[in-house]
């Protein structure tokens, strides 16, 4: 019995965040400069967008390995359609992301294939599609400058990305906390058999989780493409593992049923801070993965629900 667990994983994650900031600042006071804070925030927002969706899949006890490919596909389609479609390119790629997620969800729930395998398959398929559309990096068309301003511009002192990040967080947080489907996703992850016996629509919940994951990846893909003024097949690759790290570092359990949007917000800030801080204090680029690796292991050790599974594989 873990009768005395009163400290919730999110509290631990937040404490970790504070400690990390303190550590980096002590090592290099310029870490805390306004300029650097903005850099961290903007990097964290991309992790946030893709992590929010990933969190829903992980809440169900699954995993989505296709988010990186969705980001790449979205970036390429976005660049290809900005000129012919104009502003309609935005909703188009969001729909593509969500549709890819629905496809994942259908494969997992209807064919009953573990999400790890299902999304391993679709990530390859989507990546190939992206290469077929354009193997070369695509720059943003000259005419698209105004349209991209939606992402890269600012409203007074407030950058648009911040608003997008906040909006994405609000939507995902609300879905999880205040809608029936969001709640079913949590129930399914916490105990699928009980959920079935209680009449919840397991398949629908699972498909929704994957759809939200695709949607989050699409948002991240748009932000990244707009910031870089380009789209290319290798754009999303690193975000597969980074999104998973963001989710678990925030305290969402890989076993499902605990954690969610708020945790992912903290996770994204931590990941953004560390990525940036290691560079600022001058850690060798090749050594940075050591720190990240250790951090992820510690985070999971703290949040993992060992009660739920007898055998660790």
């Amino acid at each position, binding site marked *: 019995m873990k009768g005395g667990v009163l400290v919730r994983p999110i509290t631990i994650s937040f404490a970790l965040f504070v400690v990390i900031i303190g550590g980096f600042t002590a090592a290099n006071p310029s870490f805390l400069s306004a300029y650097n804070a903005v850099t961290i925030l903007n990097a964290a927002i991309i992790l946030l967008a893709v992590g929010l969706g990933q969190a829903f899949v992980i809440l169900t006890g699954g995993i989505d390995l296709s988010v990186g490919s969705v980001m790449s596909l979205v970036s390429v389609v976005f660049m290809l359609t900005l000129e012919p479609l104009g502003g309609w390119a935005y909703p188009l790629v969001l729909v593509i992301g969500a549709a890819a997620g629905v496809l994942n969800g259908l494969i997992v729930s209807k064919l009953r294939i573990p999400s790890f395998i299902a999304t391993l398959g679709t990530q390859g398929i989507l990546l190939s599609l992206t290469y077929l559309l354009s193997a070369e990096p695509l720059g943003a068309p000259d005419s698209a400058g105004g349209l991209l301003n939606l992402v890269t511009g600012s409203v007074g002192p407030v950058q648009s990305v911040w608003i997008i990040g906040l909006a994405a967080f609000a939507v995902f947080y609300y879905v999880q906390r205040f809608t029936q489907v969001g709640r079913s996703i949590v129930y399914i992850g916490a105990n699928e058999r009980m959920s079935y016996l209680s*009449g919840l629509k397991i398949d629908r919940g699972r498909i929704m989780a994957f759809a939200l994951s695709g949607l989050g990846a699409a948002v991240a893909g748009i932000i990244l493409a707009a910031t870089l003024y380009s789209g290319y097949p290798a754009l999303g690759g690193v975000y597969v593992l980074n999104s998973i790290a963001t989710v678990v570092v925030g305290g969402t359990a890989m076993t499902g049923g605990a954690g969610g949007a708020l945790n992912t917000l903290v996770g994204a800030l931590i990941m953004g801070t560390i990525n940036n801080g290691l560079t600022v204090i001058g850690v060798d680029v090749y050594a940075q993965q050591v720190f990240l690796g250790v951090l992820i292991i510690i985070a999971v050790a703290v949040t993992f629900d060992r009660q739920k599974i007898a055998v660790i594989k």
Partner: protein
Amino acid sequence: MEQAAVLELNGITKRFPGVTALQDVHLSLGAGEILGLVGENGAGKSTLMKILVGLQAPDEGEIRLKGEKVHLDGPGGAIRHGIGMVFQEGSMIPNLSVMENLFLRHEERFRRFGLLSAGAMAAEAHIELKAVGLGTLNPRTRTGELSAAEKQMVEIARLLWLSRLYGVHNPILILDEPTTVLQEQEARILFEILRRLREKASIIFISHRLEEVVMLSDRILVLRDGRRMAELGHDEAQVRGIEKLMVGHELAEEHFRETLQTEPQEEVVLAVQGLAMEGKFRNFSLQLRKGEIVSLVGLLGSGKEEVCRVLGGSEQPSAGTITVGRRGARFSSPKDAISVGIGCVPIDRRNDGLATSLDVAENINLLVLRQLVSGIFLNPRLERENAARWVRECLVKTPSLQTACANLSGGNQQKVVIAKWLAANVRVLVLDHPTRGIDVGAKDEIYRRIRELAAAGVCLLIMCDTLEEDIGLCNRMLVMKDGEVVRDIPCPRGGKPTPLDVIGYIV
């Protein structure tokens, strides 16, 4: 048995969260003795045996072997002390030969010139097998091809061989319900061999078939509710007397809140006609009237569990009709059953009834989320109010609504499961062993809740831990045997049958 005991258990107590499985149990076993161990399900037999083979450690009490206090740390440690368990179907690797299983992990003894000598192994295996009546069995046979009886014998042979290897005289063999998987003839042979083994081993024999226990045992220990109820010598033991000791003589009337029992109303809420499930049960009919408590009793395999699963929608019948109210109903999943007002409180509440990592409010509100919205969003105030209301009504003792269910006692977890279904306003509630593993106080509160529900017009179909509980709670009882209802026994207030009246129909 005059000589010193080979095995002594003194004051063994084992507590699990919310329930005391064993309370101050004493047990002694002499050399060459066969001790019968009997008790109802949940009486503590399995826990006691798990302690003996080192799978669980007692909270209090000591284990002495030949007078010496020992600490057993797992089956491997237990066998080193000469204590071994014989499993119903054997615990051997089916793809290995009999001799390979016999000498598993000790093959180095058969090394000749650096290689394993199959001949030496087979020769020694033959001697060991002969001792347990398998002299004609080829030691090279694949173990998976053996019958259940042969597997048990091989396992006994292995335990005897191992204890000799570890230098233990008079090892202790534990047989847990060995005859359940045996034909009558095989069981007779097993008994014959067990009697012969008395020369070199002591045996603890567990069985629900009391006739066997009486016939075979030198002494019989009766457990009830984790306590040692009695110990009977071979000459004084009688099946009827043991039955009484197992169920308890006094049917404490007030124990099941019998004075609150109400008569069912006229209206038939659930009508089941000719329900069947291939190979499980057939021709099951039931009319459940408003406010009626019907108890389903029968042995494992009688089909009662499957009937409940079909009514709850988690399994599909092969024939028959279910009518709820005036409408015919077909359930392809629990969702369909729930939509017509049938709920199931499952036996395994931690895995099937609750999400233990979620809090009390989340669990209670699961079925009624739809009603707790303002517009399209869930309303936290309504959620809180609904959860608080049912926590109050069902007397759930919890520090707060945000307490994870994992941190509640078994009884309070069960109340949360019941609260969840009551919040959904069910018309029929199937209670699968509603008081399993919960303490006396919480039991009584659940009994009272069941009475109140019946009085309020909810129909209840119950399956209980003990016959006494079934009889005490229900208005009438259906006895199932081999997939069919064999008796419909009324149990009105003040006119209840005794467990002894009923048990004959069950077995």
